[in-house]
Each structure stands twice: as structure tokens, then as C-alpha cells.
């Protein structure tokens, strides 16, 4: 069922991009991709809840939240996008953690950690400038931007080399 959802999303993306290419529709590819990500993320999260599939739940909720992040980024002019990445990591992880608690209400550990991450994220959002860590974030993200292709290669190779446990 999830593969069918992926197929539908990819088909809509491809068809809409073709219409865009021929001038029937007029929008940016970034906008279209984020809308598809949101639509796929929502339906897939719903499906994951119905099937109690935790792995799908974390993947689809991440895609949904990243879709929101991209749509905000492509529609609004944000001056400090790098700080946005920093806070988003906390807020997205907090949301996923709370979703994991909703999926299995006996696991309060995810509720506590999710709530604490939310608080940390909001505090960072509010006091980032006062804490004067923006320059550190810029430095780190700059470093990441240089080395991220190598990180991807290492990541891929480690999956290939490691045994399926």
C-alpha cells in the first residue's frame, strides 16, 4: 500500500512537472515537490498508524515536516535559513518522538523526550541571538555544506558493508 502511495506521488509529480514544462501550469518545482511531500507524508503517516508500522511512521512524518519546511522556505523570504535548520532538527525530532508515543501509549519515554526537545527548540528559537551561537551554527553548517557529499558516500558504503541485523 505504501508503495502505491509512492507510485501515486511520483506519478502526480511527473505529470504536473510535464504540464509545467509545456506551460499549462505555472509554478516552481520546489513548490510542487514540497506539496507532494506534504500530501505523501500525511497519507503515509495515516497508513503507518493503521498498520502500526513504526519505521514507516518516522519516515513519513519526517517527509511531511520537511515538506512544510521547504514550502515555507520557498514561499517566504527568510534571512537566517541556517538557524532555521538548527531549530528544525529539534522540532522535527520532538514531533516524531510524540508521534511514537501516540502510536504506543505505554512508552512514556518518547513523550518526555519529545516534550523536552520541544521546549529546547522553542527556547533556542527565542534566545538564539542572545546566546550568540549564530556564528557557531553558521560555521558548522558551512563545514557540513563542504563535506556533505563525502558524508553521503560514507553513509552509503557503511550500509553496504554492514550486515543486515
Amino acid at each position, binding site marked *: 500500500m505504501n508503495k*502505491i502511495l*509512492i507510485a501515486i506521488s511520483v506519478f502526480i509529480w511527473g505529470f504536473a512537472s510535464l504540464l509545467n514544462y509545456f506551460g499549462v501550469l505555472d509554478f516552481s518545482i520546489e513548490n510542487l515537490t514540497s506539496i507532494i511531500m506534504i500530501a505523501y507524508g500525511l497519507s503515509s503517516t495515516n497508513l503507518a498508524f493503521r498498520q502500526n*508500522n513504526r519505521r514507516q511512521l518516522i519516515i513519513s512524518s519526517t517527509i511531511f515536516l520537511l515538506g512544510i519546511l521547504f514550502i515555507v522556505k520557498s514561499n517566504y523570504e527568510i534571512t537566517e535559513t541556517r538557524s532555521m535548520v538548527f531549530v528544525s532538527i529539534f522540532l522535527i525530532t520532538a514531533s516524531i518522538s510524540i508521534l511514537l508515543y501516540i502510536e504506543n501509549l505505554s512508552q512514556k519515554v518518547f513523550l518526555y523526550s519529545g516534550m523536552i526537545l520541544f521546549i529546547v527548540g522553542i527556547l*533556542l528559537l527565542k534566545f538564539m541571538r542572545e546566546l550568540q551561537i549564530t556564528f557557531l551554527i553558521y560555521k558548522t553548517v558551512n563545514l557540513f555544506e563542504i563535506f556533505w557529499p*563525502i*558524508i553521503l558516500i560514507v553513509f552509503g558504503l*557503511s550500509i553496504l558493508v554492514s550486515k543486515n541485523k
Partner: protein
Amino acid sequence: MNFSPKAKMNDQNLYEELFSEQNYLKKPDKHGLYRSANNSVVAGVCAGIANYLHQDVKLIRLTTILLLILGWWVAVFYLVLAFMLPIEKNPKELSYEEHYQIEQENARTVFAGLLILFGIHFSLIELGIETSNNFFVLPNNFMIPVIAIAFSIFLFTNKFYSNYNLSEQKKSFRLIKKRKMFLGVCSGLSKYLSVDLTSLRIIFLILLFLTLGLFSIFYFMLYLFSKYEMEII
């Protein structure tokens, strides 16, 4: 090679056994080039080629993905093969569990291959080596959507076994001492979420780096509020 009459007789018997009307229907097609019916990610072309060449399917799949670095023509060539090659007529019957294992292994290979492919692609861009913006005479803005539509059609027509182990999911999150590297949080989480441990560890490390180490709060929270899994002696 043994050419004695006795060996010839044995070969004849083996041949008859293999190609008798009843058994022939059960044997997989190994002589021609076919698309695989029970080992496919998109259309089973790579598994078909691997069967034909007697090579590891993982290697063929990875090579195909990495060849995409040379251009989108590889994807088009794949789709042409997918449309032209016939599907295996008498595939080997696999159990539900075997299908699931094959699917998991395929997912790992494709995911790893795509990560390496994107890594190489963006490394080349960083080094100033531009990839072509056009596929032959057609622009990428046209070709990529067409490939996406064809890809989705093949996904529609495939049969998948992704939800096999849902009933076997762990009911509670526990830290695991046996496979721990630091406190056992990642190994516990990987078991609870049924995700790959190495991938989870690397994602944790990346997030830790991007958040200047503050992401460790999440790690320690999970450690503080959870117990270790009971070890069976």
C-alpha cells in the same frame, strides 16, 4: 569433464529429470534474458541480467545506480529493457518470508546506492565538474518527469511484501547492552523501530554535529527514562 558412457547416461537422466513436462514447469528460466518475477525493485531487469550473467544481483543493481552518474540515458535504457524483455515464465516459488528478506536487501542496496550516487554527483559539482543539463537533445526538465511517470507505472504493477514482520514488532523500547557502542540507545531504538542500526547511528552523529552537540539531550533522555533489555542466559 567425464565423457564415459556411464557419465553420459547420468547426464541423460539428469536432462530428462530437468526437462520432463512436470518438472520443466517448475524450473526457473535460466537460459534467456528475462525480467525477474520475484526479485524486483522497479521491473526486475537487474535481477534478470544478474541471473543471465550468473553474477550477484546486488552488484548489478549497484552498478546500474552508479552508472546514472553518466546521465539519464541509463534510466531510459533500463525502461526500454523493462518494456522489451519478457518476464520470467516459471519463477522459483518463494515463501512469504523469503520475499520479504529479498525486498529488505533490495531496499538496503538501492538506498546505499542512491546515497553514494548523490555523494559522487555533488562532489563533482563541488569540484567544478558540471554534469550535462540535457539528455541528448531533450532537456532534463522534460526527461526527468517522463522517467518519473514510467517509474511510477512499474511501481503500480509490482507486488511488494513490506508489512511482513509487523506482528513481530517489539512492544516496548529497551536499551540493548549486547550491541551497545556507548549506552545502547541506538541499538535499542533500531530494534524498536525495525531500522538499520548503522544508518541510525550515522544519522544520530550527523544531527549531533549539526546541533553543536545539543542533540545529545535526546540521547540522554532516552537513556534516563528507559531500562536495559533482560538478557536470556
